[in-house]
């Protein structure tokens, strides 16, 4: 069997996330439509949308600086970097895998979101600025939850490398049922709902500008730049799903060797697992109502509670 060199596997990690992510978005909107009794868009629709947008011309608002056009490219570059740091396909760390820990990945994702928000602030469009300011405000209150989840990981594994936590989780059933692990995973899942702009935080497909957070930010971008932002938000979604699946919830099906067959199986397994998470997310989308803007703090405080309890039980020796 063909043995792949490590850099190729690393490139495959990035490629998997980038090229599979619009498909995952497509599957989620298809499943959601089916649950609502609609036929829904084709699963490949996000790819067609991207292809169409890349062919369109792009306009920038008057008086916006060069950063307006630079931000989508830089943000997309950030989303390409993170899959190198987290276990996407392999159980072993790849050459560049140890250049950043979970916090490093989090900082890069936050940087991407900062640049998109700055570009939105530069447009002068009230809705884009509204979205940007909301994203930053609520980002500031979800950040402590992420930090506490990372601290939990650090207490459990004594490092904060995602590969080590994945290896710890698969090492036995006692690691799976420990409350610290379950609570941290649940808190992370709630943060993912926030970060990917799903119900109960915001409606993903709506056109109601006043309730928008994530969706409002690229209002003024058009053409290839808008395509990059859309693609970037799909990629971010799959990155978060991968982080949740391959580090916390289900780090099974990853390649432990460099054989081509194993790596291909890992790609298929990741996509299958991400689709399962996507189905869960669309069930949540169809079950709950969107929270009023000022009640998002309640949602975040629930996630915070889970993460704090994870740390408490660890300190008491029961986690």
């Amino acid at each position, binding site marked *: 069997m063909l043995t792949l060199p*490590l850099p190729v596997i690393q490139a495959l990690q990035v490629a998997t996330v980038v090229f599979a992510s619009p498909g995952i978005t497509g599957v989620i909107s298809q499943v959601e439509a089916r649950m609502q009794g609609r036929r829904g868009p084709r699963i490949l629709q996000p790819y067609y949308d991207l292809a169409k947008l890349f062919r369109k011309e792009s306009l920038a608002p008057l008086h916006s600086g060069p950063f307006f056009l630079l931000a989508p490219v830089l943000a997309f570059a950030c989303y390409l970097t993170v899959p190198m740091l987290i276990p996407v396909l392999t159980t*072993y*760390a790849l*050459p560049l*895998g*140890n250049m950043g820990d979970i916090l490093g990945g989090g900082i890069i994702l936050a940087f991407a979101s900062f640049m998109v928000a700055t570009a939105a602030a530069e447009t002068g469009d009230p809705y884009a600025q509204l979205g940007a300011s909301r994203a930053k405000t609520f980002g500031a209150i979800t950040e402590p939850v992420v930090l506490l989840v990372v601290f939990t990981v650090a*207490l*459990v*594994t*004594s*490092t904060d*490398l995602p*590969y*080590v936590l994945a*290896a*710890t989780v698969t*090492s*036995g*059933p*006692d*690691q*799976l*049922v*420990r*409350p610290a692990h*379950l*609570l941290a995973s649940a808190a992370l899942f709630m943060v993912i709902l926030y970060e990917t702009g799903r119900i109960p935080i915001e409606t993903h497909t709506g056109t109601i500008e006043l309730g928008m957070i994530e969706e409002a930010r690229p209002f003024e971008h058009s053409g290839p730049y808008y395509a990059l932002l859309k693609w970037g938000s799909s990629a971010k979604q799959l990155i978060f799903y991968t982080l949740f699946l391959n580090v916390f919830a289900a780090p099974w099906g990853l390649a432990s060797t460099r054989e081509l067959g194993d790596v291909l199986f890992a790609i298929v397994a990741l996509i299958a697992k991400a689709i399962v998470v996507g189905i869960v997310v669309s069930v949540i989308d169809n079950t709950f109502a969107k929270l009023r803007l000022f*009640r998002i*703090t*309640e949602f*975040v*405080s*629930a996630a*915070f*509670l*889970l993460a*704090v*309890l994870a740390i*408490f*039980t*660890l*300190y*008491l*020796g*029961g*986690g």
Partner: protein
Amino acid sequence: MIEILTVARPAPTVFDGTANTVAVVVLLLEFGMLRASLFGAQVRLYAAQSVAVSVLAGVVAVGRGVPELFILAALSLLLKAVIVPLVMMGQLRDSRAEIAGSGSLGVASEVIISILVAAFGFFAVGALGIHSEVLPAAALSLSMAVVLVSFVLMILRRDVISQAIGFFSLENGVSMASLVIAAGLPLILEVAFLFDLLVAVVVFGVLIRVQSDRTKSFSTVALDRLRG
């Protein structure tokens, strides 16, 4: 290829982990009561919490081979998860009053206060160094946290339903603590406690009924207007 060091913090055994997880679920449901906005939701949360306590008793019965705990689990499931909620719902069926927004603080602040209070309970009991043969000590700390958070619930929510449910869930916390400390307590005593609870439920139900009939609401804010 970079070798990965797996120096994990020692995990509790599967039994301890499961028991602690169930205890954490009990605590989380207690937190859920802080934000419940319908009285049916409050009663359902209490029923779910009682189910979790019964499951914990069942886990101990299976894991540690204490067969009489099965009887206790079944009895408390029947009484606290079925009869008490039915009695509460039955007594208040015709009442249309709401309990939404009865908290004297915002939900997020209530949760943060409860986290602090729960942390105090956690570490105060943890510092006592009580060891139990049947359950991990963390479960005792968790049950202390349940008791303290139910106090916060009774203090901060200004409606009779939440206060009554807070009192009943306090009993859930206490029975969880008794599972840790005294799993071998004679069954007759445990059953006596359960029937005490039933008496409390009936008395509270009547009081709630009188209150809601007189003031047409569940709110306790209006209580001082009844004087004179």
